[in-house]
């Protein structure tokens, strides 16, 4: 893993206390990830989202296998707006982003702009709502495709 300061410099940011994590504006995300990818030895491991009171906090976790010593995670974070959460897609940078972005859209309802095929991946297609949002109501009667309501013993 490379020194956090080197990565921050490449991204044009000043290193902060937590040296393995950088926050960027939504519009800056593709450029930041593109810069990191061009440095080599990065794998896009994961995209995850947290529903925070101030908005949706998204994290792109990259595995840094370059430099000296052990490999480590470098995280790029974006805070997406609560009312209309949108961030640019990075599918053009890493193909792994396809399924990961679809998961975040399905479960957290964050839209990824500039890509095709952003559809549900784990919930069924006619599912309403995004279950990992904090305001999602879990106590709903079980409904099954085909109309049976609360069926079962």
């Amino acid at each position, binding site marked *: *893993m490379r020194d956090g300061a080197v990565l921050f410099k490449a991204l044009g940011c000043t290193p902060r206390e937590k040296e393995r994590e950088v926050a960027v504006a939504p519009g800056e995300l593709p450029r930041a990830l593109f810069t990191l990818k061009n440095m080599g030895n990065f*794998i*896009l*491991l*994961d995209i*995850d989202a*947290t*529903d925070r009171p101030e908005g949706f906090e998204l*994290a792109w*976790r990259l*595995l840094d*296998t370059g430099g000296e010593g*052990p*490999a*480590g*995670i470098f*995280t790029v974070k974006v805070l997406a707006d609560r009312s209309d959460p949108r961030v640019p897609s990075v599918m053009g940078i*890493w*193909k*792994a982003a*396809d*399924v*990961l972005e679809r*998961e975040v859209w399905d*479960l957290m309802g964050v839209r990824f702009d500039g890509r095709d095929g952003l559809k*549900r*991946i*784990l*919930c*069924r297609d006619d599912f309403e709502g995004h*279950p*990992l949002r904090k305001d*999602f109501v*879990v106590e709903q009667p079980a409904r099954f495709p085909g109309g049976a309501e609360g069926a079962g013993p």
Partner: protein
Amino acid sequence: MNDGAFLSEVGDFDPLETEEYTLNLGPQHPSTHGVYRARLRLNGETIVSCENVIGYLHRGIEKLAESRTYAQFAPYTARFDYLAGALNNWGYALAVEKLGGIEVPERAEYLRVIAGELQRIASHLVMLASMVIDLNAVTGWMYAFTAREGILDLLEALSGSRMMLTYVVAGGVSADLPEEFELKTKTALEGLRSRLDDFQALVSGNEIFQSRTRGIGVIESGQALEYGMTGPNLRSCGIRLDMRRDAPYGVYPRMDFDVPVLHGGDCFDRYSIRILEILQSVRLVEQALGGIPSGPVRTKLKRTWRPPVGEAFAQIESARGIQGYHLVSDGTDKPYRMHLRSPSFVNIGVLPELAPGLTIQDFVATLASLDIVLGEIDR
């Protein structure tokens, strides 16, 4: 009508019209290893396009985590990758320990290696068994599964459960070694070695098996990295990346083991690398049993344990690749958010690009060689 006239008459027809059609492989199909569905467009028997349809096993475990305490959630982790329960436990325990700054006794670290590597062996044996049965080698399946039974007996002796174990817990492991465990392990590993030799003699050199797997479903190293593939699937296309060696946790830095790498990237190499990894795991179990120190096996946490506000991401080398747990704490006894980065979910992302051009039988071999577990894909 004589033959010549018949042929000339056939010659007058327009070429047969063909059209593409759709085939749903799964969700209920023996070769999909669970409830995975591939929506295939076919031209004859050749795949034109492939779409992954998943989610049939989605249980909303990430949402469930938000209403369970940190300790209560631990048993759920074995339900992600249900073929590698102890490794799931371990990843989650690492994330909780990172979040709360919990120390793990040294004896527990060795016990984790023992449980984790036994689990890896059991998981790889299922891969070998199900791959050969998908290619119609039913006898081979029996050999790998009987070998796995011996390993599951050990895991049961350790934890009380064959598959859904909660052995590795935050702060250590749930129990110390049972009586005569070393002897039992020695017997079981001897049995495993001999079974694996039989299995190799039976399957690996088999001409039909080779012709159905060599050069089939080749994944290039660049393609694998682009799709975020990890684990044995990545290591079989020439990239030596193993969290146990490259971002070591626990006592792995003290262990002497190799990370096998193959370069073909085809189904046969993805099959072979599992056998090589089983042999390395055997080495690790034997070393850990030989070098285990005495002492406590668990740092006890209070029932109402609360981590400080913050977040943690921890990753381990699971049987299928890098498994990462992300935990967010708001200072209460329950996680604010829990997220699993599951290797199988990311690994199947390559299929839509890999499948076109393959025949159905090659697709079945390729899917089997990727070794997916739907429990961790759908979560």
